[in-house]
């Protein structure tokens, strides 16, 4: 696991552990030495075994990188097990490093991750199960991780040694370099577009849940007040609960269908483009693959360049999902607003109308501020992307005209 996904997973585990530790601190503070090492081990183990570290990157084909790495490791006397897109190197009886290659816009990236051998796995599990051994298990895992990281960093760069394709002439290398550079940029853009939309889709699903909850609450309170007045003690809840559930279901399903229709085709398009460009990139970096590709790389790049406005649009349409700072402020304001409204509703149901007005008034002010903040951000972002897009359009038009003229002049 790498980057943001790894950080999110670890943060999630830590949050769960913090919540789990509260009752332990309150009830079993006296025997902390029994449960504290176990909690520490539950934090340390995933942190070291899930972490995948990028070691090196370069314009070499993934099989070439894996072969060079395996040869270097074998020369150093390390036992190597090749996999589909990885090479596993055994460090000792307890641990191994799994080296993995993947294509990115920087070329082939080699990453490494600590793996426990079967013996290592049995030992760690046995220590954890014994509870008293959880502290040593955490310590052992940390030591193995540090050793594996050192090992991976010392051997990783060896995978990128040697010329890419010595047989080519300087002119061929120049053309090849430009093809790879173009593919790399296009791949980066298509992946950025995919990531932006994927994040926006995830965020939209969270907003959907919030909307469904708000609808449920509003219908529940609205129906209750309409049927019983402001009478929290003796009012009947059956119909409001049924109505609220029905409304929430209808709104939830309807919005979910709309979201799918909006995001899924886009995501599929960006995924297909990334796969096509990634395959072409891999082929270009493989010195042994001299067969002409089914689609010419030039054509693929020309086709990809016509997708650039769409890829830029993907980032614009992703909205706040692409700007974590602004989205945090908006989320904070929205949460405060929702909390105030909820308090206002409760105050209203209890007949405290002055408190209701205060809560609703403050919530309205916060909502207006959030809306102003969002609109100002959106105007600025739209202007920036529009400027990018028009500059790109002009640039593209100019170069395409030059290409057309070139053929005519021939």
């Amino acid at each position: 696991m790498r980057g943001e996904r790894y950080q999110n997973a670890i943060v999630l585990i830590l949050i769960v552990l913090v919540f789990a530790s509260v009752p332990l601190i309150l009830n079993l503070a006296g025997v902390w030495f029994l449960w504290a090492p176990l909690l520490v081990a539950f934090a340390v183990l995933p942190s070291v075994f899930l972490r995948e570290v990028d070691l090196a990157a370069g314009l070499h084909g993934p099989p070439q990188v894996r072969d060079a790495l395996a040869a270097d490791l074998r020369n150093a006397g390390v036992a190597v097990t090749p996999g589909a897109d990885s090479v596993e190197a055994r460090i000792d009886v307890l641990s191994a490093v799994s080296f993995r290659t993947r294509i990115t816009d920087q070329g082939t990236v080699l990453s490494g991750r600590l793996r426990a051998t079967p013996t290592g796995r049995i030992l760690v599990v046995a220590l954890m199960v014994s509870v008293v051994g959880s502290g040593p298990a955490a310590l052992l895992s940390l030591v193995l991780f540090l050793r594996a990281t050192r090992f991976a960093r010392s051997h990783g760069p060896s995978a990128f040694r040697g010329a890419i394709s010595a047989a080519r002439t300087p002119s061929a290398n120049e053309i090849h370099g430009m093809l790879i550079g173009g593919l790399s940029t296009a791949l980066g853009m298509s992946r950025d577009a995919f990531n932006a939309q994927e994040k926006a889709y995830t965020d939209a699903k969270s907003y959907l849940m919030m909307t469904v909850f708000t609808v449920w609450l509003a219908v529940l309170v609205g129906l209750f007040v309409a049927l019983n007045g402001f009478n929290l003690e003796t009012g009947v809840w059956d119909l409001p609960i049924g109505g609220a559930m029905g409304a929430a279901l209808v709104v939830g399903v309807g919005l979910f269908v709309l979201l799918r229709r909006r995001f899924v085709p886009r995501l599929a398009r960006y995924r297909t483009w990334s796969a096509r460009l990634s395959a072409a990139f891999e082929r270009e970096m493989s010195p042994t693959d001299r067969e002409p590709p089914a689609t010419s790389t030039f054509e693929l790049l020309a086709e990809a360049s016509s997708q650039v406005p769409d890829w830029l649009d993907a980032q614009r349409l992703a909205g706040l999902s692409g700007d974590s700072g602004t989205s945090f402020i908006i989320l904070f304001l929205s949460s405060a607003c929702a909390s105030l409204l909820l308090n206002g509703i409760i105050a209203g149901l209890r007949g405290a109308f002055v408190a209701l007005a205060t809560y609703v008034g403050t919530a309205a002010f916060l909502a207006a501020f959030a809306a102003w903040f969002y609109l100002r951000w959106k105007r600025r972002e739209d202007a920036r992307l529009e400027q990018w897009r028009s500059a790109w359009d002009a640039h593209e038009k100019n170069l395409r005209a030059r290409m057309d003229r070139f053929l005519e002049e021939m």
Partner: protein
Amino acid sequence: MAGSPPLERPDLYVVARLLESLWRQDAPIMKTRLQVAANVNYDVFTRYLEWMVGRGLAALENSADGHERVALTQKGREAYRKLVQWIHEIVQGRSPGA
């Protein structure tokens, strides 16, 4: 190659496809193989080949096995380099900051 009407305005992509196929090979290649790589029918292919040979981008060579082969000339290589450079510039110049 006689009999086909000459090309008035060649398609850039077909020309690039032919040049790329030739550029990828270290030696002259057979016409049928080039036609398959270009993904056009034989009539269109011969017109394009004629056009390219006429402009010095490709050359025809007779090989010992009796088959006619096509080779990329220096001018053809330079033309392909220019096309790749332009498409590279289009993709790279995606934003004012790039």
